[in-house]
C-alpha cells in the first residue's frame, strides 16, 4: 500500500521556503490522481507552475534576494532571487539523474524526483533501496532518459549598479517583506541590514570564504597551511571573476535546466528564481582525509575544473528566470514605469526635465551649458543597429581642458589649477583601485552615478593599465573577468588627467587595444589560448582629459575653464528630482521609433553640399563625411532628448548650431 500522504495546499511562503517539498508533493499528487507514467515526469512543467504561483511582482518580491541578503540568512534549499550578470557560460554541463526509483524491502517501488538539488532526497529510509533501473518495461535498454544535463553558468551580481539602484531594489524587497509578519526572523535580519551601510548588505561571497577560513582553521596544524593556501587561492579565483578587482560582490553558480540554454548570453543581466544551495562550509572536516590521500591525484588533475571552486560558492538551481528589457537597461524605475504605461506623462515633462537636468550636469562643469548638453546627449546614446560592420548609435564623448584638482586639497577657491601644477600633485589613493583621484572627476562621477543605473569610475593611470585586465581572458579552463565585462548600458567615466609618462607593459598595451576597440566598434575581445572571441557591447564612455585625448573618441569638446566655479556644484538635489532625471534618461534612451522624414533627409543633404561649397569658396576647412556622420548621430540624440521621435529641420539646425559651437571651441583650443 502506498502511504497516502495528505496533500496539503501550499501557500506562497511554503513555495519560498520548501520549494522542493512542494514540487515533490505536487508530483505525487499528479501521480496518484492520473497515475501518470513515472518516466514522463519531465512532462510536468514545473517552471510554468512556479511562474503562475509568482505571477505578480509583489509575490515575486517576497522571495528573498541574494543581492541584498547575506547568504546564510536564507535557509538552505529555499527559493531565492538573484539579479545577476552572467560571467561565464563555458562551464559546461553536469549530468545528473533526474529521477530514480527506490524500493522498500517489501518490494514497494517509489519514484523519487531529483531535480533542482545537488543532494539526493534526504528521506530515504534504511529499508528502501535505490532501484536505478534503466530497464523498465517501457524504455528500451539504450534509453538514458533519466540521465539529463543541466548547464552551469557562473554569475555575479550586476557590476557597476549604482547605490540608488541597489537601494531601490532593496526598498521594494523590504516593502514586500514588511507586509508579511509571518517571517519574523528573516525580516528582522534584513532590517538590521538596512540599518547598517549598504556596503555591508552587499556582503561579498569573497568575504564569506574568508570568514570560513577563520572559523574552520582550527582543525589541526597539518591542515592549517593547506586550507589557508586553498582559501587564498579560492579567494583569488573569485576576485578574478568580477570585472572590478577588489570590490564586493555576490557570486553564484546558477544551474539551468532545459534544452534552450543558448538563450542566455554572456554579460546579460538576468533575474533568476531558483533553489539556493549553501556553499559547503565544512570543507575541511569532511574532506581532509580525502584530500590528503588525494593529493597526488589532484596534482595529476590540475586541468580538471576545480570542484573546490564550485562547492565553495553558493549554487542556485534556476527554476525560471526573466531577462526582459528592464534588466538590460538596468533601470529599476522603468519596472513600475512600464507597468503603469505613463509614457505620455514623462514626454510632456521632457523639456522641463531636460532643462533641469542640463543645469544639474552643468553645475559640475562650472556651468558650461554646451558641455552639459553634450554629456546629456552622450547619456542618451546607445548602439541601436549593427549591420555589416556598422555600429550605429555609439557616441564616445571627450571633454578636454579639464583641470586637475588633487582630492587631498580641500577646495576652497573657485580658481582652476593649471595643468602643470596638477600633474605634479601626488595621488594619494592606492594605485590599482578604480576610483577617481581627480576631484573634478570625482564630482562628475558623483553626478553621473546619481542619475545612471550602472556606472563605474575608470581612472586611466599607468598602474591600472598595467595591472588590471580590461578584457576577459582565459589561460586555461577558467575565464577571468576584465573591467569591460559589464552588461549593456553601463557607463564609464575615463579620467585621462591622471595619466603620466612611463612604460606600458604587455597587459597595458593589450588593455589599450581593448579600450580602442571598444570605443571604435563597441566590441570586446575575450581572449582564449588559441583564439579570441568577439562580443558585442554597449558601454557608455565619457573621457576627461587635459589636452586632446589619445583615445580614438567620436567627439572632442573643450571645457571653458574661465568660468569654472566649484561653488556652483549643487550637491544635494531632492530625491524626487533625481528620480525624475533617472526616469527621463531611462525612457528617452529607449525611444524606439526614431525616424528621419524624406524631406528632412533631403534638407540635410542640401545643407551638407551647400556648406562644403561655401567653405570651399571662403577657403575654410570644409566639413567631411565624418562630421556629417557625427551630426547625424547627434541629431538623433537631440531628437530623443526632446522626447520626440521624428527629426525636423529645426532640430537639425539646433544640432548644427551645437556642433558649430563645438568646432568653434576646438579651433580656439587648438590655437591656444
Amino acid at each position, binding site marked *: 500500500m502506498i502511504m497516502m500522504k495528505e496533500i496539503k495546499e501550499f501557500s506562497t511562503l511554503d513555495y519560498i521556503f520548501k520549494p522542493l517539498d512542494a514540487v515533490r508533493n505536487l508530483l505525487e499528487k499528479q501521480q496518484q490522481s492520473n497515475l501518470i507514467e513515472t518516466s514522463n515526469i519531465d512532462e510536468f512543467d514545473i517552471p510554468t507552475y512556479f511562474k503562475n504561483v509568482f505571477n505578480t511582482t509583489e509575490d515575486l518580491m517576497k522571495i528573498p534576494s541574494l543581492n541584498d541578503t547575506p547568504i546564510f540568512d536564507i535557509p538552505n534549499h529555499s527559493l531565492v532571487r538573484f539579479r545577476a550578470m552572467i560571467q561565464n557560460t563555458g562551464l559546461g554541463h553536469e549530468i545528473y539523474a533526474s529521477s530514480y526509483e527506490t524500493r522498500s524491502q517489501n518490494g514497494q517501488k517509489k519514484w523519487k524526483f531529483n531535480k533542482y538539488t545537488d543532494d539526493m532526497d534526504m528521506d530515504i529510509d534504511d529499508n528502501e533501496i535505490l532501484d536505478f533501473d534503466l530497464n523498465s518495461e517501457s524504455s528500451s535498454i539504450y534509453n538514458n532518459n533519466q540521465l539529463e544535463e543541466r548547464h552551469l553558468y557562473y554569475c555575479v551580481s550586476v557590476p557597476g549598479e549604482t547605490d540608488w539602484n541597489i537601494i531601490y531594489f532593496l526598498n521594494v524587497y523590504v516593502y514586500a517583506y514588511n507586509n508579511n509578519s509571518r517571517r519574523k526572523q528573516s525580516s528582522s535580519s534584513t532590517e538590521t541590514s538596512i540599518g547598517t551601510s549598504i556596503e555591508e548588505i552587499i556582503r561579498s561571497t569573497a568575504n564569506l570564504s574568508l570568514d570560513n577560513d577563520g572559523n574552520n582553521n582550527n582543525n589541526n596544524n597539518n591542515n592549517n597551511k593547506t586550507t589557508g593556501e586553498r582559501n587564498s587561492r579560492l579567494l583569488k579565483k573569485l576576485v578574478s571573476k568580477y570585472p572590478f578587482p577588489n570590490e564586493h560582490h555576490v557570486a553564484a553558480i546558477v544551474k539551468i535546466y532545459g534544452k534552450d540554454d543558448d538563450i542566455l548570453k554572456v554579460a546579460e543581466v538576468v533575474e533568476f528564481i531558483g533553489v539556493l544551495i549553501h556553499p559547503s562550509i565544512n570543507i575541511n572536516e569532511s574532506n581532509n582525509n580525502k584530500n590528503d590521500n588525494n593529493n597526488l591525484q589532484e596534482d595529476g588533475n590540475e586541468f580538471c575544473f576545480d570542484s573546490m571552486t564550485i562547492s565553495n560558492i553558493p549554487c542556485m538551481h534556476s527554476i525560471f528566470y526573466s531577462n526582459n528589457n528592464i534588466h538590460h537597461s538596468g533601470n529599476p524605475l522603468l519596472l513600475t514605469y512600464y507597468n503603469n504605461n505613463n509614457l505620455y506623462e514623462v514626454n510632456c515633462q521632457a523639456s522641463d526635465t531636460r532643462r533641469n537636468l542640463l543645469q544639474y550636469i552643468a553645475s559640475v562643469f562650472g556651468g558650461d551649458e554646451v558641455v552639459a548638453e553634450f554629456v546629456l546627449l552622450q547619456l542618451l546614446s546607445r548602439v541601436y543597429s549593427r549591420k555589416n560592420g556598422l555600429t550605429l548609435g555609439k557616441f564616445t564623448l571627450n571633454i578636454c581642458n579639464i583641470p586637475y584638482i588633487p582630492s587631498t586639497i580641500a577646495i576652497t577657491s573657485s580658481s582652476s589649477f593649471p595643468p602643470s601644477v596638477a600633474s605634479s600633485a601626488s595621488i594619494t589613493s592606492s594605485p590599482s583601485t578604480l576610483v577617481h583621484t581627480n576631484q573634478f572627476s570625482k564630482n562628475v562621477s558623483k553626478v553621473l552615478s546619481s542619475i545612471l543605473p550602472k556606472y563605474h569610475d575608470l581612472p586611466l593611470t599607468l598602474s591600472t593599465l598595467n595591472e588590471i585586465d580590461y578584457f576577459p581572458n582565459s589561460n586555461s579552463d577558467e575565464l577571468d573577468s576584465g573591467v569591460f565585462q559589464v552588461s549593456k548600458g553601463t557607463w564609464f567615466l575615463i579620467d585621462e588627467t591622471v595619466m603620466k609618462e612611463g612604460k606600458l607593459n604587455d597587459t597595458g598595451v593589450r588593455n589599450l587595444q581593448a579600450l580602442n576597440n571598444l570605443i571604435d566598434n563597441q566590441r570586446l575581445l575575450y581572449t582564449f589560448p588559441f583564439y579570441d572571441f568577439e562580443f558585442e557591447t554597449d558601454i557608455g564612455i565619457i573621457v576627461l582629459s587635459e589636452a586632446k585625448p589619445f583615445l580614438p573618441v567620436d567627439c572632442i569638446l573643450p571645457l571653458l575653464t574661465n568660468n569654472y566655479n566649484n561653488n556652483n556644484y549643487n550637491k544635494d538635489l531632492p530625491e524626487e528630482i533625481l528620480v525624475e532625471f533617472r526616469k527621463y534618461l531611462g525612457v528617452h534612451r529607449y525611444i524606439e521609433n526614431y525616424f528621419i522624414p524624406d524631406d528632412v533627409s533631403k534638407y540635410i543633404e542640401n545643407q551638407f553640399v551647400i556648406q562644403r561649397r561655401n567653405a570651399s569658396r571662403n577657403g575654410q576647412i570644409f566639413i567631411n563625411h565624418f562630421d*556629417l556622420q557625427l551630426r547625424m548621430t547627434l541629431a538623433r540624440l537631440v531628437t530623443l532628448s526632446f522626447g520626440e521621435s521624428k527629426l525636423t529641420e529645426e532640430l537639425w539646425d539646433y544640432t548644427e548650431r551645437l556642433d558649430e559651437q563645438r568646432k568653434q571651441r576646438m579651433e580656439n583650443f587648438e590655437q591656444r
Partner: protein
Amino acid sequence: MPVTVTYTTTFLIMAMSWQVKLWDYGVVSTNHSVDKMAQAFQTIKINVNYSKDKNSIKAFFERFEDRNSRNGEMEIDIENDNPENYKYLRQLQTISNRENDNLVIELDDIADWEDREDGLLHRIQRNVRRYIDLFYQVIDNKDDGLMPKPTKTVGIEDDAIDVLMQHRKDRDAQRPEGDRGYFPATLTRRYTLYFKSLKDEPALSIRKVGGFHVGQLVTVQGIITRVHDVKPFLVVAGFTCEMCGEEVFQEVTKKTYHPLVECPSENCRTNNVRGKLHMQTRSCKFIPFQEVKMQELTEQVPVGHIPRSMTIFLYGPLTRTTNPGDIVSISGIFQATPHQGHRSSNTLLTDVYLEGQNVRQLKKQYDKMDRDPIIQQKVRDLARDPNIYTLLAKSIAPEIYGHEDVKRALLLQLIGGVTKTMGDGMKIRGDLNICLMGDPGVAKSQLLKYICKVAPRGVYTTGRGSSGVGLTASVERDPVTDEMILEGGALVLADNGICCIDEFDKMEDGDRTAIHEVMEQQTISISKAGITTTLNARTSILAAANPIYGRYNPKLSPTHNINLPAALMSRFDILFLILDRPNFDLDEALANHVAHVHRKGTHPDMDMEVLDVNTIRHYIAEARTKRPIVPSELGEYIVDSYVKIRQEQANEQARKKEHSHISPRTILAVIRMATALARIRLADKVERDDVQEALRLLEVSKDSLKDKSDPSNNKSSISAIYTIINEIRDREDNSTLDYNQIAQEVTSRYTGDQLEECILEYEKVNIWKRNDEKTTLTYINREDND
C-alpha cells in the same frame, strides 16, 4: 610498444574509496550511499544475447575481407583460406609478430559485413565499453582464440613480461590443475583494441554531447588547449602474499581502485591465515595515459557564449598524438563518473570525460581556416558568379562610400599574387604593397582598419610610434601640445599577413628604411651586438600617408606634396591619391548615403548584397590556395603594354610632367595584380582580361596622382585635347568630325578616359554633340563660335 613494467613509484591511481562499476552504461559510482545503488545496478538485465554476439564477432574476424583483396584475388583462388585475405586476421598476425600494438576495428567494416539495421554495429555504438571487452574475449579466448602463433621469432624483443610469463608457466606446470589463480588476460595482452567510428559520422561540438550519449561512441571536434604529461596508468596490479607466496592479480579499469589486502588464495584460506598482500611493481602492468583538454572551435560557439571544454583520456598508443593548438576530431566513449568534488557525499552527479578511441588531426596549422561545409558551398556558389570581383570589392568596407577602384586594389592586396621561389633560392614576392595618400578625413584609416580586420593576420599601427618590434610601449607627453602619445611599437610584424601602417609619412626615416627591405625582399636583416640574422617578414604593406602640409596643396607639384623618397614610392605596387574636394554630385551622393545609413540603420541598397566579413575571409582563403600561371602568349602582351607605359613616361619626362616613376618593378606589379585577379576567379591561368584590369588599375592610380591632384593639370589635359580636336576641325574644315580619327590622334598622347572626359565636359556646355553611335562629333552653333 606498450609500457608494461615501469619502476616509477608515481601511482596515478591511489586507493580511495569503494568502486562499483557499471560497464553497460559507463556509469561508475562511488562511496557509501552507493552500495544501495550498486545493488540496484547489478539487477540490470539486458535483453542482449552476448554469446550470440560473440559468435558473430568471431565470424566477423574470420570472414571479413577488405574490399581490395576481395576484388583483386577473388578469381585466383576462391577456396583458399589464406589468412592474408582477411583484413583482421592479417592484423592479428602482425600483432602476434610484435610488429604492431594496436588493433583498430573500423565500424565501416562491420557495417559492410552486416547489413541489418539495429544489429551488431548499432549495439557496439551504443555500448562500446562492453563490446571492447567482448572483442577482447573473442580474440583472447583460451580454447579457440583468434590470436595466431607468431610466424617470426620474436625472441630478441623479449621483455620483462615474457620473462615473467615463462616463470609463471613453469610454476603453474608444477602445480595441480585447480590451483591456478586468476590470471587476467589484460596482463599478457600485447595490443590495444580501438574502434574507429563510421566515416560519415558527423562530428559533434562539445556542447552537443549530453546525457543521452553516455556510454556511446561519439565523435567530437575541437581544438586541443592543454596536454598533460604522459603518465603510467596501472592496468593490472600484482600482489604477492607474504604468507603463501601466492601471486594475486587485480584488474583496474577505472581511475580509482581499492587494492586487495587479504590473500584470497586457497592456501591461505584453508590454513585460516590472513596473508598480507604486498604490491609488486614488477608484476604490475602499466600503460601510458594522457589527459587532454579540448575546447570548442569558434564556429561551434553560439553568439554571445563562452566556449566549453571537455576532458579526454587517451591510453596506450594514442598518447602523444595531440599537441596544444591542434584541431582534431576525436571519437571515443563518452563516460561519466560520479562527481569527485566535496559535495559528492550524497548525490547523483557525474563528471564526464571522453575515453579516446581514435584521434584524427584535421589541420596541421591553425592559420589555415577551418571551413564548414555551408560556407564552403557558399564560396563555390560565389565563384560561379561572373560578378564576383565587383561584388567582393564592393563588400570591402561597405560603410565607406565610393573609392571603388581603391577597394578593388585592396581586394587584390588581400588575395595577393603568387610568391615564386627560384631554383637558386631567390624569391619573387607575390604580396602587393599599396600606399594611400590623401587629405585627412577621407576614410584612409577606416580602410586600413577594415583590411586589418579581414586579413587573417592583420596588424594595424601608426607610423608615429612604430619604433621597433615588440609589445612594449610607453606613454609620453608631447612637449608642445601637452597631448599624451603612445610611443613605441605595439607592432608585431605580420608574417604572412598584412601590415597596415597609418601616418606613414610621420615615420622616422630610419624606421622607414627598414621597411624598404621588408617590402622587396620580405626579410628583416638584423645585425646587432654580434648577431647577424635574417628574419622572415612575408607581409604586404598597406600604408596611408598625408600630404606634406597636412592637406594637399594644389599649388605644388605632386612630388612636393608627397613627402616620400622615390626609392620607397617605387616599392609600392599601386599608389592612390584620395583628395577631399567639394563636388556637387559626389557630395550629394555621399550625404545621401550617410543619411540613409542613419535613417534605416543599414546601407542603401546597392546593386547587390554585400558579403559579410566571414564570407570574404573564407573566399580569400579559398582563392589563396590557387597558384595561377601566366601563359606565354600573355607574356608578350604584358611586355607590349609595359613598353607602351615606358614610352608614355618618356614623353612625360620630356615635358617635365613626371608624376610617378615607372620602373621594371611596375611590370612585376602588373603580373602580381593579374595573378591575384585570376585567383579571384579561382582559375589556374591568368587571362588577358586580368592583365587589362591590372593595367587599368595602374592607370587609375596614376590618374589619381596626375589629374585630380592638380585641377589646372586636369583642365590642361582636357583643354589640350580640346585644342587637338579644334586643330583637327580646322584642318578638316568640317563641323562634323570622325570620332575614330579623333581617337587616333588623341590617344597617342592621352588616354581614352581623358578623351571621354573632355568630350563629356564640352558636351555639357553645348560645344559639340556626339551622335548616338558615337562615331561622329558635331560642333553646335559653329557660327556663334566664330
